[in-house]
């Protein structure tokens, strides 16, 4: 493992490592095939700075308005000893009336350091797991820890884990609306995978305390505003599939040496900052270094990865840049130019392209008929 650590340190260069968080872990799970992201995250590279240095700064970070809105909604749901949340849990999960115990883990007597908060979370959850029914119901902002890529990652969930008839449930509060029982699929998927990270971390913590994984429910509670109001509504979501994906991804992060073996030894993402911290690395050299690690760009990356603009430029002209569905439909054809040539019939398809080529021709013919001309 030491050789791997040294290799990762060399990849990162002189900068301090950046820790994983729930967002980076869930991003990995959403694009498991991307070696570039896996390697850069494992090495703790500051992707934002690297991307900016090669001229493709990420359009990234949550909008301040969205953060404020999210915090306000969360505060509203949790106000008055989680009054609104208690109502939802009583109605949806038949939480018994006496279960109202509340513990705020935002800080421990004013101390907000991760170590102290994690220790306190652990102590309270241990007590709850050991004595069952009457030892705590709502845990506001617990601080969990998960091992990812050989490092301990603190996860500061904006959620409450609570105990319901002897099982812990992860509660995730999000401020996107559920309208007529429907919510934005992408946002729900992101919330689900993020909750799955918390479920995993909570199970890890309980496992250290000698409690089995069945103590944490596979179902998470998602709380969102209902329709066009501020009224919260809750839904139970199954995260078993995401848990499987995450576990595989984390195991893969731990076997990062397999990925490293495919990368030339000389590659590094060091920005060579001067004394004032201004990057001095030759831009072209850095581009080549990034290019040496294969990426797997999909349009979804634009929402989750700091390297997205660089990868998109790199992937321009390839069918993958058009999204997963298009790439799968055009299986075996990597290049948009080839697709167009096949559509025009100017080159004969190779054997492995025959099926896709027939579909492309049919599409081109239909387009021609509709537009009254041949594209």
């Amino acid at each position, binding site marked *: 493992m030491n050789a791997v650590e040294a290799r990762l340190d060399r990849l990162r260069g002189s900068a301090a490592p950046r820790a994983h968080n729930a967002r980076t872990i869930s991003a990995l799970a959403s694009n498991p095939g991307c070696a570039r992201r896996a390697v850069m995250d494992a090495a703790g590279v500051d992707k934002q700075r690297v991307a900016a240095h090669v001229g493709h700064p990420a359009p990234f970070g949550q909008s301040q308005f969205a953060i404020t809105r999210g915090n306000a909604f969360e505060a509203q749901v949790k106000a*008055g*000893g989680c009054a609104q949340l208690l109502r939802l849990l009583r109605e949806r999960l038949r939480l018994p*009336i006496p279960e109202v115990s509340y513990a*705020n883990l935002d800080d*421990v*007597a004013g101390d907000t350091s991760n170590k*102290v908060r994690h220790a306190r979370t652990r102590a309270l959850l241990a007590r709850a797991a050991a004595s069952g029914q009457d030892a705590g119901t709502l845990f506001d902002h617990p601080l969990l820890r998960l091992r990812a890529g050989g490092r301990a990652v603190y996860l500061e969930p904006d959620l409450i884990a609570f105990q319901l008839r002897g099982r812990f449930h992860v509660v995730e509060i999000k401020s996107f609306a559920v309208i007529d029982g429907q919510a934005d699929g992408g946002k729900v998927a992101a919330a689900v995978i993020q909750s799955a990270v918390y479920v995993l971390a909570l199970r890890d913590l309980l496992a250290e305390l000698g409690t089995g994984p069945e103590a944490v429910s596979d179902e998470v509670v998602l709380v969102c505003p209902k329709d066009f109001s501020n009224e919260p509504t809750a839904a139970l979501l199954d995260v078993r599939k995401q848990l499987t994906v995450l576990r595989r991804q984390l195991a893969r992060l731990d076997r990062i040496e397999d990925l490293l073996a495919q990368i030339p030894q000389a590659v590094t993402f060091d920005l060579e900052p001067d004394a004032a911290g201004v990057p001095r690395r030759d831009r072209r050299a850095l581009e080549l270094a990034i290019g040496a690690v294969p990426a797997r760009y999909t349009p979804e990356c634009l929402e989750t990865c700091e390297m997205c603009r660089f990868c998109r430029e790199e992937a321009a002209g390839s069918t993958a840049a058009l999204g997963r569905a298009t790439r799968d439909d055009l299986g075996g054809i990597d290049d948009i130019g080839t697709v167009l040539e096949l559509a025009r019939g100017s080159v004969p398809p190779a054997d492995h392209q025959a099926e896709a080529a027939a579909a492309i021709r049919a599409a081109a013919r239909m387009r021609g008929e509709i537009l009254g001309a041949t594209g």
Partner: protein
Amino acid sequence: MAQLAEELERRMEELRAEIRRAVIAGDRARASELRRRLRATDREWEEALARLAAPQAPGGPGPGAGPGPGADAGEPAGRRGGALLTVRERVHQALTLLGAPAAPRLIVAVYEAFYAGELPAARLTSLRRDEERSFRSAPHARPYYLCAALSADLLAPARGLLAVSTWPMERRVIGPLSPRVDYLTAAIGVAERLLATGQPPAAARRLLWRFAVNIPGAASGPAGLDPGQVAAAARAELAVHADADAAHRAAAARRALDQLDSAGQLFGGGGLRLLRGGAAR
């Protein structure tokens, strides 16, 4: 003019001491007369202050530019609307109605629903710190202080809650069940105030409705909102939690009275020292 303000400050200090003596002696008529005079003096002081601040306003904070930000009476007299009370008095009124430690947001909602005038939420952020400073410089000089609620386990200030120093310690400590108990207590306080008010303002009914939807059996719809029913439903749930909560709080209150000095009892103390002591065992 600075002398005038200082003189008024001395006068208010004296009045407060006299009020305290009158309250202790049980002379309520005299106490309320003194309070009226204190409020009048306070108004004069505000005006003196406004006159002091006016010429300095363009030049930024000059020497002695009035009280620090958020001091409880630093508001120009003109912006007060109908209310003649200071921020701390308004907060005290709202907390007394609720009867339990509460978050600033709820305090503002209650004040604006039941009393004329407004209570700017921004003014509440530094209130606790100002009260603590005042208490430490002249302990017990005021008849009451707006203080912290203490977490039952660590006896540290509970985040974002205000309480009144004259409440018994049991009411000012927050055990695991206390957030819910205090919520129900506040709902009962609001409901009873509505019952006592002949023509309740619409804002007050909305406030009660917000409580009622989160209490089982309190209301079927906004039209059929009945304060008596809300209070009864809140009492019914309160009965479930009351004994366990009271036991927690009594034990914590005993510890607080044993372990903390008088400032600590109001504004919190102990904290990590106690936690470490607890973890070591």
